[in-house]
């Protein structure tokens, strides 16, 4: 029997994919990706040799980018800052993605850094971005609202990246406490529109 996930910091997963750890490690090393192994684009540095190294290495890369972004912002270089903050977001996102344990402290920390970095994007972007929650059938969908500068009464697109994100945000609202679901429902979101 597979032991239940504890909340003590252990990365042991309750899913059976842990039994195949050697294969997952090999795929990460050869493809440089956490998932979607068929894609050619590497998103993890060659420094990562096993799956469990991913959060540590990606946190370090994200922190570096965030440091440069802060310095760029302080120098008034908003365009560079925005790009760097977004890349830091991606590093933190990939880092937390590799932790399968819901509410794991490292996952929550990395997700918090992701949100913090995205706040940098919101500050430095050349158009307004706001965080909003949309009521939907008794649940709230968390989104980033990208406004068209100066626009009024423009059509608005609500975009959920994939069905699973939609289900997490609408059918299992209790799970939004974990870093996992918030990542899915906020940063990849939406979209275009109007300032009303």
């Amino acid at each position, binding site marked *: 029997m597979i032991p239940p996930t504890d909340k003590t910091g252990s990365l042991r997963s309750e899913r059976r994919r842990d039994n195949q750890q050697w294969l997952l490690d090999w795929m990460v090393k050869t493809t440089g990706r956490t998932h979607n192994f068929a894609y050619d684009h590497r998103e993890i*540095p060659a420094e990562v040799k096993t799956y469990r190294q991913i959060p540590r290495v990606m946190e*370090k*890369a994200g922190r*570096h*980018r965030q*440091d*440069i972004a*802060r*310095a*760029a912002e*302080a*120098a*008034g*270089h*908003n*365009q*560079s800052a925005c*790009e*760097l903050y977004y*890349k830091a977001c991606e590093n933190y996102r990939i880092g937390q993605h590799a932790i399968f344990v819901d509410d794991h402290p490292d996952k929550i920390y990395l997700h918090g850094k992701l949100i913090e970095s995205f706040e940098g994007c919101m500050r430095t972007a050349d158009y307004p971005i706001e965080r909003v929650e949309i009521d939907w059938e008794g649940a709230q969908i968390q989104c980033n609202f990208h406004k068209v500068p100066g626009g009024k009464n423009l059509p608005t697109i609500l975009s959920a990246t994939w069905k699973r994100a939609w289900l997490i945000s609408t059918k299992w609202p209790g799970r939004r406490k974990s870093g996992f679901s918030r990542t899915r429902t906020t940063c990849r979101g939406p979209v275009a529109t109007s300032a009303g």
Partner: protein
Amino acid sequence: MMADSLVADWLKDALLDKKPRDVNKVVFVHDRAGEGPYSRPIRGIEEVYLGSRLDI
């Protein structure tokens, strides 16, 4: 690794005449830490030698 994230804000500064008069400075850009091109200027390459950093 970082160069792809840095866009030409410096060029915009130059066109708007916001660059300082003296642009002759040396910066140590660490590969995995620090503030990249925004790091504090150093006197020269000898400042990043291990001996100098350990003050020996």
